[in-house]
Every structure is written in C-alpha cells, then in structure tokens.
C-alpha cells in the first residue's frame, strides 16, 4: 500500500523532525511512503483570509501529486481539514473535478486518525516517560472529529500519563493570520491555554498541529516558562522527542 505524506508547510519550514517522525511511524507500519517533491502549502492562509484566487490551482496540484496513493496522511488537523472539507467545496463549480477531489479527500487522513483507524497500530516506537496534557486543535476536532484518536494512541504507551487540562477543546488563539492581525486577543487566548496546561503540572503539552504548538510554545516561553516541553504527537509516538 502506497501512502502519500503531505508534510505541511509549517513542518517543512519550522520542524522537519516532525515530518521524519511521521515517516518513521508510517514505514514501521509497513507502508510504502511517497513524499511528492513538488508539494508545498495547502493554501489555507489565503483561503481563510478571503483570497481564494489560487485555491483551485493548489487543489488541483494536490490531486496530481497524490492521485496514485492509496492513502494520504497529513500531520495536521488543520491542513487535513482544508484538503478533506474545503478542497471539494472549492472545486464544486466543476462537477468532474469535484468528484475526483472528493475521491482523493476520502483517502486523506489526519495522522492520528490514520494510525488508529487504518494502520491499526498496536505498538508504538516512542518511549516518552512522564506526564503530558493534550490540546485538541480546532479543525481536527470540529471538521474531522479527531479527539479520541490521539488519546487512544497515547494510552498504548505504557510510561505516559495523560492529564486532561481544562478547556482542552478551546482554541489556543493561533487561527493562522488571526494571531498576526489580532496579536493581542490571540495572546490572551494563548495565555488561557498556557494557564490551563500549566495547572495540570504536566511535563509536556502535546497536540496534532504545529501551528497551535508554535503559538502555545511561543507564549509559554515569553511568560518565562522554559521547562514545559511542547511536542507534536508524531514526535511522542515515534520517539523523536529527545532530539
């Protein structure tokens, strides 16, 4: 089975090790992983800011890059939501294209959803020891129903104790360009998230979206908290967290 990996622009630019953690998880599950070299960004920054001029081109580019794959895996609920929910919507003016996109979007999975429900991973290579708290990223949670999946995967890891924070499903304030345009409101939202996470006393905050993680980590560090670790769930599951 060929699995296409859509790395996402943030992972590509900011944290390549998350991409390698995903690779490791997919390869250790026995899949042949392909990483189309021409992949870039799903186009969400422009799309969510009202500039839809490039979205059709980017959706069709994605189709071309991944149409030969049995599955496509995305280590981000936000980008997976863009591909699964919004790409077909953006192409609906052309029924043939929309149908083709729909077929591809149905084979596209957010990482934890894929690992739990398709790959049905029983054993995970990671060996993190300690307490963690999980932040539910908005698009993954509300557009794709990703909530149980990461928790069930973490539960398979014997040395991890998950401590739920208050309001784990409330937005951290990232929202793509929102956090730049309305930095002050976004900072307050990130503050609330940091406070709730810190109240759990967990060693690490984990989430499935790098955007949220950069936002939360950025606020934690500015608040002077240099000890709480911040990880993408792929890093924890694959054991890439020590790098």
């Amino acid at each position, binding site marked *: 089975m060929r699995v296409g990996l859509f790395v996402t622009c943030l992972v590509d630019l900011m944290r*390549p*090790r998350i991409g390698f953690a995903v690779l490791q998880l997919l390869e250790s599950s026995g899949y042949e992983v392909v990483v189309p070299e021409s992949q870039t960004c799903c186009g969400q920054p*422009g799309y969510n800011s009202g500039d839809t001029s*490039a979205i059709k081109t980017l959706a069709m580019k994605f189709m071309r890059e991944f149409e030969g794959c049995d599955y496509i895996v995305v280590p981000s609920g936000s980008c997976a939501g863009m591909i699964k929910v919004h790409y077909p919507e953006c192409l609906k003016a052309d029924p043939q294209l929309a149908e083709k996109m729909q077929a591809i979007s149905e084979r596209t999975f957010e990482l934890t959803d894929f690992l739990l429900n398709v790959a049905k991973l029983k054993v995970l290579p990671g060996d993190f020891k300690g307490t963690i708290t999980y932040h539910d990223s908005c698009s993954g*949670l509300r557009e794709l129903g990703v909530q149980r999946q990461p928790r069930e995967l973490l539960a398979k890891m014997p040395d991890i104790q998950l401590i739920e924070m208050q309001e784990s499903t409330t937005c951290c304030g990232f929202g793509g360009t929102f956090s730049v345009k309305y930095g002050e409101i*976004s900072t307050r939202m990130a503050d609330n998230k940091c406070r709730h996470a810190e109240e759990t006393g967990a060693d690490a905050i984990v989430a499935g979206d790098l955007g949220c993680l950069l936002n939360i980590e950025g606020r934690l560090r500015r608040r002077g908290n240099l000890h709480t670790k911040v990880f993408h769930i792929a890093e924890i599951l694959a054991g890439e967290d020590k790098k």
Partner: protein
Amino acid sequence: MASIHFKRKASENLGNEKLQSALMRLQERFVDARTAAITDLDDFEATRDAAQKIRDRVLNNLDGWLLYFEREAISRGAVVHWAETAEDVNRIVIDIARQHGVKKVAKSKSMVSEECGLNDALEGAGIQVLETDLGEYILQLAHEPPSHIVAPVVHKTKEEISDLFAEKHQKPRKTGIAELCLEAREELRPGFLAADMGISGANFLIAESGSALIVTNEGNGRLVTTLPRVHVAITGIEKVVPTLEDVSTLIRLLPRSATGQSITNYVSVLTGPKGTEDQDGPEHFHIVLLDNGRSSLLGSEMQSMLRCIRCGACMNHCPVYQNIGGHAYGWVYPGPMGSILTPTFVGLENAMDLPNASTLCGACGVVCPVKIPLPDLLRKLREKQVEQKLRPKREMLALRAWSWMAGHPVFYAFATRIAARLMHWMGGREGRLHYLPGAAGWTDGRDMSVPEGSTFRDLYRRRKS
C-alpha cells in the same frame, strides 16, 4: 460606526479587570449550563435538524409566509406594519404613539429596537421610555448599549450594579442579588402601571395564527404586552414560523442554547388585541416587521444567517467574545452572529475587522441550534472584502505572494530554504526570536522558536541520496 474601533476597544477590554471578571461567569452560566441542558433532549441532533428544516422552509418562501402571517394577524384584529429601514420603524412607532396619545412607554427587551435606536427616537419625540427587562433597565440607567443579545448586562459585576442603583435610585447601597432585584422591581412597578404603550420584540411570529411569541424569564414581558392599552411588537421579517407546532420544536432549542434552561419562565403567545370577553390585554395590537437588509440575504450564499433565532450560544462559546466582551464589536449584535449581521446591516466597509476577528475555530457552528455554518459565512464575508478590494494592500500582497510560491515548487523550495536558514541564524544560541519583521503582531506577545535550519524537503532529499 463604532465597529471600526474594534481593535482599540478589544485592547481596552482585555485590560479591564472588572469586565474580565464579569466575563468569567459566561462559562459557568451559559456554556456549562447548555452542555447539561441539551442532554435532556432525547435526540438533540435530530431536533437541530428539524429546526434547521423549519427555518429553511420559511426562508425559501419568506414572502409567502409573511403574507400568510399578515392575513391571519389582521383577521384577529392586529395591525401589521412593514418597515424597510430602521428609520421607518421609528416613524411608524412614533405615529402609533401619537395616534393613541401615548406619553409613557414600557419596553420589554427587543434587539430590533436597539438596531433601530428606537429609544432615542421616542425620547426625541417627547415620549418617555422605560426598559423593564432587568438587564436593559440597568443599561438604561448606565446609558450603555447591551453587550450580549440574551444577557445584555453580562459585562457588569454585581458591585458595579450596586453602585449604579445607589447613585440613581438615591437609596442605601444594597449588595445582595435578591435585594437588588427587589429594588429594581419597586422602581419599575409604577412604570408598568403608568405606561400607555408597551413595546416588545418577538422571538417568533406564528403564521397560522397571526401571533407573536415572546420568551422571558422575569414576567416583565407579560406586563408590557398586556397591561398598557397599546402593544407594539417589533421584529425582523425572518422571525416567521409556519405553525405553533413548528415553534414548539424551536422552543425546545432556544432556551437550552441560550441560558441552559429547558424552558423559560414565561412563553407568551400574543394573538390580536383584547377581545370583548377578555379581561386582560391591550386594546390595540400593532406588529412592525423590519427588513433593514435582511431580504438582501435571501437567495444569496449568506441566506442561512436568517435562520438565526438569537440564542447567543455562538457568542457564549466564541473564545474571542469570551475574552473581549460584546462592546468591542461596536454595534447591537456581537460575537460570531454579529460579525455576520453587522457588516450586512451597516456595510462591509464599516465593519472591516468583524469577519476577520475570529480564529475560525468552529465552536460557534457546532453549538448553533439551527446549524448556521457561521465559520463559512465569516469566510465568505472575508472573500467579499477581498473582491471589493477593501483589505490592506500589504496584506493582500503577502498572501498573494505566498499562494503564488505555493503554486511554483521551485521558487517555494528556494525561498523556504533561505527563510529556514535565516531565521535559524537570527535565533542565535537562544534559539528563539523576540521580534520577527512582518509578524510583529505575533512576536509582541510570543517568542518564536526558530526553524531547525534546513527544510524537510532538503533533509529528505539528502537522506534518500
């Protein structure tokens, strides 16, 4: 238009400790209460589906249902007025008041009258207005607009209200909620008895019986609509519902979504003026139906917004609203629903921030009892802003440049390779950026952890070779 001051007001509100402490109660009072209340319903999702269908059925043939409503209301003795604009509403209500020699008006809460600035218009015409909903009464004393459509005074603490009452009522300062309510009741009672005219909103209009329906918790609505000799109900044209049975479905959702109650203390169905056999009720019953931009949404991609039953769940669950409160939105309707209605009613160019002031986290859409796709509608308004070239040029240029690069992988790979190296270098030994050109809004409150130095694509290529 106050919506243009969104950023400044939001900033002020973030620093207002009293407001922040008042907003903390939203979670407990409304969010948690709603979560508990929807479990009472056998099938909440099926009820939402049914409610959506009822609202869509009306909106797909709104003129037909309105004419049906008008016919039935008239046949039961009501007078129906059509108002295209807010000014029309004010003129119509003042005319009715003059026609009946009205000097004093008692009002029950009506967001449409807020939308029209009716109180000021009535006062300007020499007619005294008394708000009788406790929250609206407090705001009238404080000369402030509501900050929430269901709990208009949610932004005020009990202590502020104690101070306000002591000052305005010239009575010893009371601190208990029951004592404060009693004092308000004592002040309001003569107002009910002296009013020549009562003004209410209408949560729904029932087409089959020509009735206006209001839900209230304080009983003031019943006094306003039955005690004075003239009753005027003002509402938007979209509030019509075919049958009483349809309303019963919507009523199962409205209070649960709004305040977490299974039903409100009072549900009043007001049908025509007092009959010859009736002991209570107004002698004259007028219904004013306002358009004010609503019909422009019909048949458009924004039509679903007209399903709104004004429960306020979207704002209660919106993390932006939860942190900045309703006044920052600058007009009558705050939160996600307001960020759609305000630009619709006052013009997109007068409310530039509102459609953008959301992270599109989706919480509003999930809780909306009539399934309005609020995040999608906010995004559509952003598209309209771009189409109409209302967004700042720099922002558009940056987004276009990124999208263009995303469509050109060679340039993209080159630019991201440079950016990854540059930012990594800028982070120095600390590995964090305290300032990032072009993203100052972000780095004002956060330290950016720098990229690892090489892009994934470069590292992957190296690994393969």
